[in-house]
């Protein structure tokens, strides 16, 4: 069975459906879009594998509020949808089947009501039924392991009651097994040897003597000393996890990042060695990128994908474009809103009905920088490096800070806007996407240059997209090309200054030109567009005036929400 959707109403800032791709779902989105709330909701809807002590309890903060502490409601509802149940799982979840969805689907729903005295009433519902009550056996079908953000890996792997190694060894040495007996015998033996040593014997006599003197012979009790209970849990709880480059060290002596990996490895090993008989195990991981450098992030993502299978499903929240880039767009759930003040929605490109060819294209091209479009409030798609470098500076000339308004510029590296554009619509990624492109179609040669390795030409050019504009997707076309339009808007002296940094002689020749300036500039930079853009960026850094061409002005102001 698979968890495919979470539905929430009135739970913190969640309101609506959050699709969850499987077996790995990567919840992305900017801060405050409710990524952690998705994880918290799943923690409430499923049972912690480690036992009730690790349950997340409902508090008054879980009821929707206005962001300033004023509560807007006193009830919330959460629902998990599972599909693909096996026959056996259908039996286990018989009180939760949802024939309205499918024969092999089940739903579990909880409603919580905050009472005046601050306590919370919780009612469970199963399947399509509005009759309250779901048997515990059904609710235990899906178990979760939760890995919180910024975890104290060193602390959790230290000896003690919560030592995560206990689960692992429990799984490897189950009750009644020879392995367990071995451990217990060894511990009992050690205990006997220890208590027969001279020092321990003396200590025992000393204590007993003192006790007898204090309470007298009538009240005295027998005292004893031993090192640890030879019971399995105690022995295992006392194990320390060690790690290090050259030799295994105590965790406190290691870096945070590696300790985190060790922690996850320990938990994952326990899970893999003790798979659920039926049902599903959810691994809920918050921001696993913490303390990990990008290559390790990439490796961890691949590992998590490997762990996910028919019995295990992974849900990860992340801020890291590395993770997003490593996992593929069809694994993503983007938490976002159409505009400020609008409710947050969860959208998963896997459900957009995008053709496999376009998905493949996105997977190849959604690298670390482009993946940032999933964490934005608005996006400007541009053709090349020149626009990508210069647009933020041009925006500043319009008194717009693109990073402050959350607009990301993504260089699609050519003209293959179409697969990216498919991500945006009010029903898909609902924020604004501006496409900035040339008025002229690119020449064959230009394309060949851009697309090293012979990427097939994609038919949908910006002009074609123009015909398919939606409320959230607009196309802004230059009169001719980026550089031509910059020159056409004026700015001649600044442009020549920048050109001088790249082609000093040519710049000198053009400095006094009166007519045909745009064409002349375009001709001069045709083969050095990137370098010219860098030079212009340097020149503009001093904050001088610059006239922004109208199509760019429109694109920037529309993408930033005006």
């Amino acid at each position, binding site marked *: 069975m698979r968890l495919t959707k979470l539905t929430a109403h009135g739970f913190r800032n969640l309101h609506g459906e959050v699709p969850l791709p499987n077996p790995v779902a990567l919840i992305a989105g900017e801060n405050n879009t409710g990524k952690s709330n998705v994880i918290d909701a799943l923690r409430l809807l499923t049972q912690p594998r480690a036992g009730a002590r690790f349950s997340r309890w409902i508090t008054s903060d879980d009821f929707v509020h206005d962001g300033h502490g004023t509560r807007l409601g006193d009830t919330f509802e959460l629902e998990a949808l599972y599909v693909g149940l096996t026959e056996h799982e*259908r*039996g286990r979840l*018989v009180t939760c*089947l949802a024939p309205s969805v499918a024969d092999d689907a089940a739903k579990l729903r909880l409603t919580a009501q905050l009472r005046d005295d601050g306590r919370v*009433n919780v009612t469970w519902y199963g399947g399509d*039924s509005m*009759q309250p*009550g779901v048997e515990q056996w059904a609710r235990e079908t899906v178990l979760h392991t939760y890995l919180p953000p910024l975890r104290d890996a060193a602390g959790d792997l230290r000896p003690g009651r919560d030592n995560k190694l206990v689960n692992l060894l429990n799984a490897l040495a189950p009750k*009644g097994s020879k392995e367990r007996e071995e451990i217990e015998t060894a511990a009992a033996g050690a205990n006997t040897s220890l208590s027969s040593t001279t020092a321990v014997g003396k200590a025992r006599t000393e204590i007993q003597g003192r006790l007898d003197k204090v309470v007298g012979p009538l009240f005295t009790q027998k005292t004893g000393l031993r090192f640890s209970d030879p019971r399995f849990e105690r022995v295992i709880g006392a194990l320390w996890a060690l790690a290090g480059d050259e030799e295994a060290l105590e965790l406190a002596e290691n870096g945070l990042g590696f300790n985190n990996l060790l922690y996850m490895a320990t938990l994952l090993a326990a899970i893999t060695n003790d798979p659920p008989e039926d049902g599903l195990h959810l691994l809920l991981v918050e921001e696993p990128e913490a303390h990990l450098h990008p290559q390790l992030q990439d490796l961890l993502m691949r590992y998590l994908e490997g762990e996910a299978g028919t019995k295990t499903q992974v849900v990860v929240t992340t801020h890291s474009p590395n993770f997003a880039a490593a996992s593929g767009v069809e694994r993503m759930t983007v938490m976002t809103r159409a505009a400020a003040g609008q409710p947050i929605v969860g959208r998963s490109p896997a459900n957009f009905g995008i053709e496999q060819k376009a998905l493949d294209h996105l997977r190849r091209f959604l690298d670390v920088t482009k993946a940032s479009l999933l964490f934005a409030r608005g996006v400007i798609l541009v053709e090349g490096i020149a626009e990508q470098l210069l647009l933020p500076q041009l925006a500043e000339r319009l008194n717009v800070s693109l990073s402050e308004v959350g607009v990301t510029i993504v260089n699609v590296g050519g003209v293959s806007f179409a697969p990216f554009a498919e991500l945006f619509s009010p029903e898909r990624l609902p924020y604004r996407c501006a496409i900035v492109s040339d008025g002229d179609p690119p020449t064959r040669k230009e394309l060949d240059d851009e697309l090293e390795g012979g990427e097939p030409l994609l038919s949908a050019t910006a002009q074609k997209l123009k015909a398919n504009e939606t409320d959230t997707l607009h196309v802004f076309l230059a009169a001719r090309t980026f550089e031509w339009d910059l020159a056409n808007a004026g700015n001649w002296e600044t442009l020549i200054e920048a050109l001088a940094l790249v082609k000093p002689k040519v710049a000198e020749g053009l400095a006094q030109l009166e007519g045909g300036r745009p064409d002349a500039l375009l001709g001069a930079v045709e083969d050095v567009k990137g370098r010219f853009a860098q030079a212009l960026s340097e020149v503009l850094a001093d904050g001088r005036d610059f006239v922004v061409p109208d199509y760019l002005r429109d694109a920037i102001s529309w993408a930033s929400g005006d």
Partner: protein
Amino acid sequence: MTTAERLELWIDDPEHVSDQQRGAVRADGNYFLLSRPGSGKTRIVGIRLARLAAQQKPLRVAATSYTNVAIRQIQATVRERGVVLDARHFTGTIHQFLLDYVVYPYGQLLGIRQPCNLIMDEAWPGWPPVIYKGDQSKRLPVGALHYTATGAFVVHTRPTIGVSREDAATTQIQQVRAKKQEARKRGLVSGSDAMYYAQKLLTDHPKICAAVAQRFDELIVDEAQDTSDVQLKCLELLHGSGKLRSLVLVGDLEQSIYSFQGARPPLCQALVDHCGLAELPLTENFRSSQAICNVTCRFCGRTDPDEAVGQNKDCEIPPEIVIYDQGNLRSAVESFQGRLAHHEIAEGGAVVLARRRKFRDQINGIERVEGLHKFVISLGRLGASTREQRTIERDQLRTAERLLADMAWGDDPILAETDRHLAVRRSLMTLMKELPDFDRTLADWIAQAREKVKIVLAGLTDDPAHKPQHALKSKAGFNAVQASDVFSTQPTSLLARTVHDVKGESHEAVLLVVQPRHGQSDQAELWSAPLLGEAVDESQEEELRIAYVALTRAERYCAVALPNNVEVDRIDAYLAVGFIQAN
């Protein structure tokens, strides 16, 4: 040693479990445990459940029975064996099983509004009425019409509107169906409706049926002889899905006494045959003396008595008959008391039984008042329990809660552990303290109780669905009766109880009081018929089983009290099979 290993050793010990019982405990599934009174069948179910639950890989078992009493026995047996049942198992009535796994999750497929309000009582005023003969005054609540397994209807209690039971059940089918549908839309479901809806859902949705069957590895149905036709059909469907690994029926067809709720021993036997269940008979009696076994078997036409094997097997007190003055019912109990003293049996271990509730009340000296509203009865009983410092039974409390909640909110169900439920319980506790004493007329008691109810009701809602005046209403004649005669149990020792009340129980001594002949009914004649080898009409067979159930409750001494106008040949019939006349 693990719990499972300890349990196996315990089961191996013949002191705890006999060979016959052990066979049943350890048998593979899919069998019919044919039990007899005192064979310890419910205990066997408990031990079997404990064993299956304690294994290294526990089986998922649903252990069901017909009454809550039996369920509590099963749970207690499991607890005594040190086994804790986790969420994979179910223990509860067969009724609750079908509600929890079929009706509640899927009732919406039949258009039942949820949450649905399970109303067990056909006297409830909120049922849509079925009108007969086009006369608005000839109406029956649709809750009084019960589905049979074939989708037809039956009426259990004889209507008082000038329509026969048969006509009431068959003449207004269309109207009944429409009213049932209306009730479903309003979320109103009677206990028997719910079972039929379970049957319908399991029939119409084979995948749901398969999932329910798949939920458990073994379904045990204790007291299978009392299971209704509709419930049996549900079991047949679950077994027929092929997904139920084991079906275990446990029962004694000779103890089937619930025909008024649809139980038919032949249907139970038919299910056993249909499912191909192996029959495992239990012939040992752990409860009664051999002397008792020797006579009780005669009431169900058997001449081979059960084998007494329990601690009372050698008790030599013979079964007796006592003759009582039919003008003084209490004299039956007094004679019994004398016999108990003679046999040195404490009264605390004895029970007096009557076939019918009305006769029981007469023996107990309780005034039977016609037209008393359920709520008045319920409050009166609670008041009596409080005053006489008796334990208040859960079912008694539930009934009162349901009636009070209905008065406050009408159709709206009170849900377990909701604020509403807590409020109702608190109100009821207050009310019980405040109820008037019984040393006044019934009319006066009702009037004063009404005022108290008004106060607690106001604490529950500003706008009650039903005014207390409706339920707590005085009627003609209530002035002439003392409240204490209606509610207080006059003799505080040896209270008579009905046979249905003590089903499944054991008592050191039992007195079955035979009701004097009235109208068509002649209990003395009927119950002596099998002793004389006389044939009995099929419709009367259950009455014989009731006598059988009554007398088989006895551990050491059983007696039958016969009215003094009974014919001599009837007395001789008892003497012939081994009874001794005691007075």
